């Protein structure tokens, strides 16, 4: 009888993913300092290596970057999530070729189960180069016996490439920690600050530092039972994973969400109730679509509005309320009704609202419906209508069919996101393809 193959995982991660996506269609951005800005062009959410070298940190507000650096030294772009989503799908489907199972962990990262795969390092080099050739996105691949080690290996692969000398050069781009002799592995762990470990947040990290630890090697050498007694099972799991004992499985299907949120900062301040109703209706519609996609029903709807906390000179206002539904539902009409009722209750005129949002709470599986004594029979099941609505919106574009209170689409809505620096939807819109000069 052959023994089970020992577990092995890879983490494939696109380098500076959003910036790399933009560079595929704007070669002139290569070699330049580039940042991608968050919704409403707020702050940096992706940086090219050149931007990092200028000292731009993740989350730096755009106005600060603009004021501190000479004009033209940084190219700032509004996030183009349609483009990133399509490039992500392409990348994930190529990365999936590395092993029998894949967990898509975020827009630019996926874990691959490598158990039973032979010649992993060579295969990883091959898949990495295929992603680079086929879609133009440079990646780092980390390989280890557990997901936590794969994540750490990925950090090593990327850092060794970006900062020569930080780790051995042959670990750049593809780092297989499982193939290293014990002494070399210790050296790599010694060179890694403990804050880089997946699962060690800022708070626990500080506690470990206060206890005299500094590197990943210090953490690996902790006694798991002691860690459990002093810090709890979460850190114990991380320590065991670092020691090569798999505790976190690959998650194939994302589990159903316990709460669905749709919130947005407005392009400019909103004061009128009717505009807020439009926004809240739109948010509820989107949240309801997500809810139906996971076959769920919501028991309560929370709605909130607030002014900008950054504009301290203006009167501040912030309110939220939760509206319970008579019966859990996934019907957009009923959810919008509840959200708008909540909004009317918390709205006060005379404030410049900067953000609003809707949370669907108390989510349950829609297929197990609770029997209930019908108190009034005016409520009909509009499941079919909802299904048709989702279908039309998917087929003909968001907003084809909407609740009347969402108002009209387009620029007349004055609460839409500010995206002054967005590149075209190169790969998802027939009218926005890139040009080739003949």
């Amino acid at each position: 009888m052959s023994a089970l193959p020992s577990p092995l995982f890879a983490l494939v991660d696109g380098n500076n993913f959003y910036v790399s996506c933009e560079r595929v269609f704007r070669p002139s951005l290569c070699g330049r300092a580039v940042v991608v800005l968050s919704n409403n062009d707020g702050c940096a959410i992706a940086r090219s290596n050149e931007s990092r070298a200028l000292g731009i940190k993740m989350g730096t507000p755009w106005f600060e970057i603009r004021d501190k650096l000479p004009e033209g030294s940084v190219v700032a772009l509004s996030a183009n999530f349609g483009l990133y989503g399509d490039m992500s799908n392409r990348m994930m489907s190529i990365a999936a070729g590395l092993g029998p199972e894949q967990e898509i962990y975020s827009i630019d990262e996926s874990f691959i189960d490598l158990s039973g795969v032979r010649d992993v390092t060579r295969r990883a080099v091959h898949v990495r180069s295929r992603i680079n050739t086929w879609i133009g996105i440079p990646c780092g691949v980390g390989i280890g016996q557990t997901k936590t080690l794969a994540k750490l290996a990925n950090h090593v692969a990327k850092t060794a490439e970006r900062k020569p000398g930080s780790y051995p050069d042959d670990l750049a781009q593809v780092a297989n920690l499982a193939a290293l002799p014990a002494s070399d592995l210790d050296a790599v762990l010694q060179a890694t600050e403990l804050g880089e470990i997946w699962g060690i947040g800022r708070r626990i990290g500080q506690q470990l530092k206060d206890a005299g630890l500094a590197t990943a090697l210090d953490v690996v050498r902790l006694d798991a039972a002691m860690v459990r007694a002093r810090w709890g099972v979460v850190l114990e799991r991380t320590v065991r994973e670092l020691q090569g004992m798999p505790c976190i499985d690959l998650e194939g299907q994302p589990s159903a969400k316990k709460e669905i949120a749709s919130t947005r900062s407005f392009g400019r301040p909103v004061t009128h109730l009717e505009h807020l109703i439009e926004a809240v209706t739109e948010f509820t519609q989107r949240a309801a679509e997500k809810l139906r996609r996971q076959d769920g029903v919501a028991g309560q709807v929370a709605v909130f509005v607030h002014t900008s906390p950054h504009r301290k000179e203006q009167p501040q206002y912030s309110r939220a309320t939760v509206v319970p539904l008579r019966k859990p539902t996934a019907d957009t009409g009923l959810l919008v009704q509840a959200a708008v009722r909540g909004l009317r209750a918390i709205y006060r005129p005379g404030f410049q609202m900067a953000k609003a949002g809707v949370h669907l709470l108390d989510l349950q599986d829609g297929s197990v419906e609770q029997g209930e004594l019908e108190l009034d029979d005016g409520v009909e099941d509009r499941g079919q209508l909802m299904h048709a609505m989702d279908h039309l919106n998917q087929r003909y574009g968001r907003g084809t069919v909407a609740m009347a209170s969402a108002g009209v689409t387009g620029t007349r809505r004055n609460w839409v996101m500010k995206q002054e620096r967005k590149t075209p939807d190169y790969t998802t819109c027939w009218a926005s393809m890139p040009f080739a000069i003949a």
Partner: protein
Amino acid sequence: MCPPTILLLPERPVPISLLPLILPLAGDRVQAGFPSPAEDFNCKRIDLTEQLVQHPQATFLLRVRGDSMKEAAIFDGDVLVVDRAIRPAHKHIVVAVLDGGDFTVKYLHKRAGQIRLVAANPTYPDIVPREGQVLEIWGVVTASITQFKT
């Protein structure tokens, strides 16, 4: 404009019955009338995407601007199917980028260690990368789509 969608909603409540209701399984053939003579020749309709796109993840569409490739039947406004998974070779039509500039569509000429980009229109000179210039072959053009006004 899309035609209005008419949705049929149940008008009356359906009474509960304890007897099982037997329904034919969807997809089961209904045994009535004459069998279709095409039944045994069931085929999938031709799919243009399948024909034009060999490597879906690596394929991108680009719009042509200009007439330098007109003798290769690539016209202004056409849509190019560009495959990045194909290794560029001599005489391929390629999308290239010279020194991080615009995308350019030309014939690739690779002879005696020298690379040049050649137009399919005698009024355009060849592009020969100079010392120090970087020429990137972005992808290989596998088809060009011309749409006619109808």
